C-alpha cells in the first residue's frame, strides 16, 4: 500500500507534471521532424521539377516561318522525267525555300552577305521538309504553296528570348538586320511559335530545331519491352525458386549476398558485361536496343528478385499450410495462392526496376547506344538510342537550342515515369487483398 501512494505521488506531483510536459514536448518535436522530413523531400522535388519545367516548357514550341514556296520544275526535276527518283531526291530544295524567303524579305539576291544573313533564318532541315512534301505528292511540282518552314535555332532562340536583344550585336548570334527581318515576319504573322511535333517524331539531328526524340522513344520502348518480357519472368521465377525451393543454408546465403551485391554494382560495369557477353561473345549487333534491353534486364534483375522475395515471404504461412493441408502440391500452392497474393509487391518491385532501367545511361555507353542515330529502327536489332541517352547527348551539345530540349526531354521522361508510377500504384491498390 505504501508504494502505491508513492507511485501516485510520482504521477501527480509537481515534479512529475514537469517531466510529463517535457515528454510531450519531445513527442511534438518528433512528429515535427517527420513532417519536416517529408516536406524537405517534397520541397526538393518541387524545386527540381520547377527548375526543369521553367527551362523545358519552351522546347514544346518551335518557331516556323510561313513562306509561299514555288516548287519549280527546273529545280526539282529538270529532266522532266517523273521516275527519276534520284534526281528528285537530290534536288536543291534549300534553294526553293531561300528564293521564297528572299522574295518575302526583299533581300537583294546579288548581295552575298545579305543573302547569307537571310539564309541563317531558315533551318538546315527545310530541304528534308520540302523534299518529303514532294515525295509524298509529286503533283505539287510546278505549283506554289504556303509552307510553314522551320526557322533556325537562333531565330527560335531570339523569339523565345534566350538570345538577349540587349547584347551588343557583334556578340549576338543574330545581327541587327536579322533581328529586324524577324520582327518584320512576326508582325506580318508569318513567323510564330507552333507546337513542336518534331520533338516527338524526328530522329537525332545535329541542329536543335530538327532534333527529336523519335528514335529514342522507339529505342526506349524496345528496351522496356525486352526488360518486361525477360526481367519480370526471370526475376519472379528466380525469386520463387530461392524462396520456395532452394534449401536454406550456405548456398542460399551465397546467392542472397550475391544478388544484393549485384544491386550495388555500378551500372557501367553491366555495360562492360554486356559488351563482353552479348556483343563480343554472342555476336549481337552494336547499338541495338535488344542488347540494351538485355543489359538493363541484368541490371534490374536484382531489384526485381529482392522485392519479389520480400513479397513472397510476406504471404502468411497460415495460407500455405491451409493449401498444403488440403493436398495442394507445391506448384499449385504457388500458382493458386502465393503468386496472386504477392502480386502487389511484385508489381512494386517491377516498377521500381523499370523506372531505374528507364533512366539509365552509363551501361548503354559501353554497348554503343549512346549514339547519333537518324533513322527509325524497325526491329530491336537495329541501331537505336534511348530517352536518357538523348538527354545526355543533348546536355553536352554546344548549341543553345539543345539546352531547352534537354529539359524538355527530361519532362517527357518524367511524364513516362509518373505514368508508370501511377500505373503501379493503381495496380497495387487493385490487387491488394486483405487476409
Amino acid at each position, binding site marked *: 500500500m505504501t508504494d502505491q501512494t508513492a507511485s501516485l505521488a510520482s504521477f501527480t506531483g509537481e515534479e512529475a507534471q514537469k517531466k510529463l510536459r517535457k*515528454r510531450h514536448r*519531445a*513527442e511534438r*518535436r*518528433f*512528429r515535427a*521532424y*517527420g513532417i519536416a*522530413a*517529408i516536406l524537405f*523531400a517534397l520541397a*526538393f*522535388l518541387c524545386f*527540381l521539377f520547377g*527548375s526543369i519545367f521553367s527551362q523545358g516548357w519552351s522546347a514544346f514550341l518551335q518557331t516556323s516561318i510561313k513562306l509561299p514556296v514555288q516548287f519549280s520544275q527546273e529545280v526539282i526535276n529538270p529532266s522532266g522525267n517523273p521516275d527519276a527518283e534520284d534526281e528528285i531526291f537530290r534536288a536543291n530544295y534549300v534553294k526553293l525555300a531561300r528564293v521564297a524567303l528572299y522574295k518575302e524579305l526583299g533581300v537583294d539576291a546579288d548581295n552575298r552577305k545579305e543573302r547569307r544573313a537571310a539564309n541563317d533564318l531558315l533551318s538546315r532541315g527545310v530541304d528534308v521538309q520540302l523534299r518529303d512534301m514532294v515525295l509524298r505528292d509529286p503533283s505539287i511540282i510546278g505549283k506554289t504553296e504556303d509552307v510553314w518552314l522551320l526557322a533556325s535555332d537562333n531565330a527560335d532562340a531570339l523569339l523565345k528570348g534566350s538570345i538577349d536583344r540587349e547584347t551588343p550585336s557583334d556578340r549576338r548570334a543574330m545581327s541587327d538586320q536579322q533581328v529586324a527581318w524577324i520582327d518584320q515576319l512576326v508582325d506580318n504573322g508569318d513567323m510564330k511559335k507552333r507546337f513542336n511535333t518534331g520533338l516527338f517524331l524526328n530522329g537525332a539531328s545535329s541542329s536543335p530545331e530538327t532534333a527529336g526524340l523519335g528514335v529514342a522513344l522507339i529505342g526506349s520502348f524496345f528496351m522496356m519491352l525486352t526488360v518486361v518480357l525477360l526481367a519480370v519472368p526471370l526475376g519472379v521465377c*528466380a525469386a520463387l*525458386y530461392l524462396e520456395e*525451393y*532452394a534449401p536454406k543454408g550456405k548456398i542460399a*546465403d551465397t*546467392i542472397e*549476398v*550475391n*544478388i*544484393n*551485391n*549485384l*544491386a*550495388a*554494382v*555500378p*551500372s*557501367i*560495369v553491366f555495360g*562492360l*558485361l554486356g559488351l*563482353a*557477353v552479348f556483343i563480343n561473345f554472342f555476336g549481337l549487333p552494336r547499338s541495338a536496343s535488344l542488347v540494351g534491353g538485355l543489359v538493363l534486364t*541484368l541490371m534490374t534483375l536484382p531489384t526485381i*528478385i529482392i522485392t519479389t522475395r520480400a513479397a513472397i515471404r*510476406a504471404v502468411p504461412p497460415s495460407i500455405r499450410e491451409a493449401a498444403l493441408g488440403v493436398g495442394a*502440391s507445391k*506448384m499449385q500452392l504457388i500458382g493458386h495462392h502465393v503468386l496472386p497474393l504477392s502480386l502487389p509487391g511484385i508489381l512494386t518491385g517491377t516498377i*521500381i526496376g523499370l*523506372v531505374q532501367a528507364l*533512366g539509365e*545511361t552509363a551501361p548503354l*555507353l*559501353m554497348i554503343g547506344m549512346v549514339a547519333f542515330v537518324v533513322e527509325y529502327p524497325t526491329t530491336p536489332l537495329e541501331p537505336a538510342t534511348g530517352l*536518357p541517352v538523348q*538527354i545526355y547527348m543533348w*546536355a553536352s551539345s554546344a548549341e543553345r537550342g539543345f539546352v531547352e530540349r*534537354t529539359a524538355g526531354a*527530361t519532362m517527357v*521522361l518524367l511524364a513516362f*515515369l509518373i505514368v508508370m*508510377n*501511377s500505373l*503501379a*500504384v493503381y495496380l497495387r491498390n487493385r490487387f491488394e487483398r486483405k487476409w
Partner: protein
Amino acid sequence: MSTLTILAILIGLGIFAYFIGRMRSIQVCGGEQRTLHSRPTYHGYYLASLTVLPAIILLAAWGVAERPATRYIAMQELGPQVLKGTDAEKALAMSVVDSIADGLPELTPEEDEVLRKARLGFVTTSDARDVLGRHGVVLGSDPGRNVIAAADELASARATSRIMLPIACFAIAALGFAWGYSRIRPGLRARNITESVMRSGLFLASTVAVLTTVGIVLSVLFETIHFFQFVSPFDYFFGTVWDPRFATVGKAEGQFGLLPLLWGTLFISAVALLVAVPVGLFAAIYMSEYAGSKVRAFAKPLLEILAGIPTIVYGFFALTVFGPLLRDLGFNIGLDISASSVLTAGIVMGVMIIPFVSSLSDDIINAVPQSLREGSYGLGATQSETIKKVILPAALPGIVGAVLLAASRAIGETMIVVLAAGIAANLTLNPLEPVTTITVKIVSQLTGDLEFNSPQTLVAFALGLTLFVITLALNVYALYIVRKYREQYE
C-alpha cells in the same frame, strides 16, 4: 520454314498434345479419376512437355550450330591461300561469301546462270558483281571465283539446313509424343514429373543472377590482371595519390593510388546517407505511424519519383542551381564552400536515395506487429517513445537492409558526383572541398582520350573489381548483422 514458324507450330503441337494427354488419361482410368495418380491436366502437361521440350532444345542447338557448320563447309571452297590465312582474313573473306549467299536465292534463273558461268570463268566476275548488285548485295570488289563457289556452297548448305531443321524438329516432337502417350497410365506420376520440369525451369532462372556475377568478374578480371602487370598492387592499394597522367608521359609514370578515390567514395556516400537516412526514416515513420492512409497513399509514390529521375538531371541541378545556392549561403555565414563539393554532391545524392530508405522502411515499420505498439502504449509511453524504443529496434534488421540498398545506390552513382563534386581526387577531411569517387574514375578512364591498352584505361577494370569486392564485403557484413539481430529478436 523460319525458326519462328517452327516454334509457333511446336507450340501448337504442344497445345494439341496437352488435350490428347488429358483425354488419354481419362480413357486409361475408365472415367474413374480417383484411380489416377495425377489429375488429367497434369497428364496433359506431361505429354505437352515431352512433345515440345526436346524439339525446342534441338531447335536451339541447331540455331547455335548452323552458322558455324555451314560456314565451315563453305569455307573449304575458298582455296588454300585463304584457308592458311589468319582468322581475321578468313572472317573477312567469309563476310563477302555471306553476303553473296544472302543474295543467291533471290536471283532469277538467267542471273543464276551468269553466276555459274562466272564461277567457271566463262564471264568475268564483275558481271557477277553487277548481277548481285541488282539485288542489293553490295560488294566492295569483284568476287573471286572460289568466293562465288563458296557462296554457292553456303547457300545450298543453308537451304539443306532449312529443310532438315523442321523435319528433325517435328520428328523429335512426334517421337516424344508417341513415347509419352504410350506411358500414360493411371499410376503415372505425371504431376511429379511436370513439377520437377517446372522446378528446373525456376532453378535455371535463378542461375541467371549468379551467372551475371560470374560474367562481371570474368569481364573485368583479365584486364585487371593486365593492369597489375603495369602497376604494382602495393602502389595501387596503398597509394595516396591519384594522378594517372597520359600514356605518352611514360609507361607507368602516372600514380594510381586507390585511397583518395576510396575515401571520396566513402565520404560522399556517408554525407548522402547522413541526408537520406534521417530524412527517409523520419518520412517513413511519419507516413506509417502518424499520417492518415490518404496522406500516405499520396506521399509515398511522390517520394518514389525522386529515385527515378535520371541522375544527369540531378547532376545539372546540383551544378547550376544547388551548388551556387549552397555557396552563396555559405558565403553569407562566412564559409567558403566550393560550388562543387562533397556537401553539394552528398546532399543531392542523399535526396535521390531518400525513397529507398523511406519506402522500404515504411513497409518494414508497418510490418511490426500492432501488439508491440499496444504493449508500449499500455504502459503509458507516448507515441514517439514507442517508436524510438520499441518499433525502431524491432524493425532494425529491415531498416539496415533498406539503408544498405540506399548505400549501394550511392556508391554506384556517377553523374551527380561528376557534376556536383568534380573529378579531383583529393584526400581531404573537409566536406566543403571537392573529392571524387571510384565510379567516376571508372567512367572517365574508360571514355577518355587515353590510349586503350595502357594502365590509364585498364585501371578502370581494376577499380571496377575493387568496388565489386568492397560492396561484396559490405553485403556479407550486413547479412551478418541482420542475422545476429534476427536471432536475438525472433
